[in-house]
């Protein structure tokens, strides 16, 4: 009977595990694209129109430094 239990575990369990994997992959992609509520904390936050990003620091007057370019860039994404 152990073979029967093993067969059922592999058959139904395998499908269930794959289903979990597909769901998690979909959630991760949605988060990365800013399509889910958790998008603000993802690595790609602020890169899509729907994502909220932390407020950009005030830009100094001269447009030369990297920090200025960064804040400008972040602002353009939102």
């Amino acid at each position: 009977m152990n073979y029967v239990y093993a067969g059922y575990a592999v058959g139904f369990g395998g499908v269930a595990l794959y289903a979990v994997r597909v769901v998690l992959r979909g959630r991760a992609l949605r988060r990365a694209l800013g399509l889910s509520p958790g998008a603000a904390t993802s690595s790609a936050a602020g890169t899509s129109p729907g994502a909220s990003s932390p407020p950009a620091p005030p830009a100094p007057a001269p447009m030369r430094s990297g920090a200025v370019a960064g804040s400008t860039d972040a602002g353009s994404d939102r």
Partner: protein
Amino acid sequence: VTPALGIGALVFSAIAIVDGLWILGPTAEQGDYSKLLVVHPPVATIAYVAFGITALASLLYLLPRTRRREWDQLAGASAEVGVVFCALTLVTGSIWGRPVWGVWWTWDARLTATALLLVLFLGYLALRRIPAEETVKGRRCAVAALIAILDIPVDHYATSWWQTLHQGSSVDLLQPDKHIDTSHNVALLLGFIAMTLAFAWLLVVRYRVEQLEARYEQEGLAIALEARRAEGGVGTSEDAEPRVGASA
């Protein structure tokens, strides 16, 4: 529709498991091992169906009149689900074969053709990951799918064409009571319903993931281009590098 498919799959899986493990009786020939009928044939049939959908979608993608990116995405999604079911077919068949045949594996025509089918569609999935222009990749994968699908008739008729250790069909749709009794037919039907619902749900969800992946690839490229433009305009890439890395 999707939640209904998911819930239906769960409910029918539970019913099929309870019926198969604790209600279905043993047979004179195989004893309790015949209970694996609930798992192995449905999983194998679903693998055929999944690869069939891949081939059909690939054909529609190849025809100029019906060419749409969605067909290619559906083919890819169905192939991945099919590979999972095909792998499960081999493993559950091996678990069934060990106590009944005395071996985990033998180079029987049916088993070999199924293993070949798995390898062919693993190759198809690998081909999908090779970077190329969208239409070139789509066409290349569609042709590969149509070649790989030729193994299905060989696999299906292997038990008729050659002398195999693997048994022939358990069920003849034209004569339902030809081989197995009603309780086993019911158990088999429950297994088929459960796996079909699970496959339908998986296909829908996986297809959506395929579309999200395509969108992510497009947006990732747009972000990289934007970062490069900013780099060119300001003269530094210090701010752009981490953002490209984070999004790619």
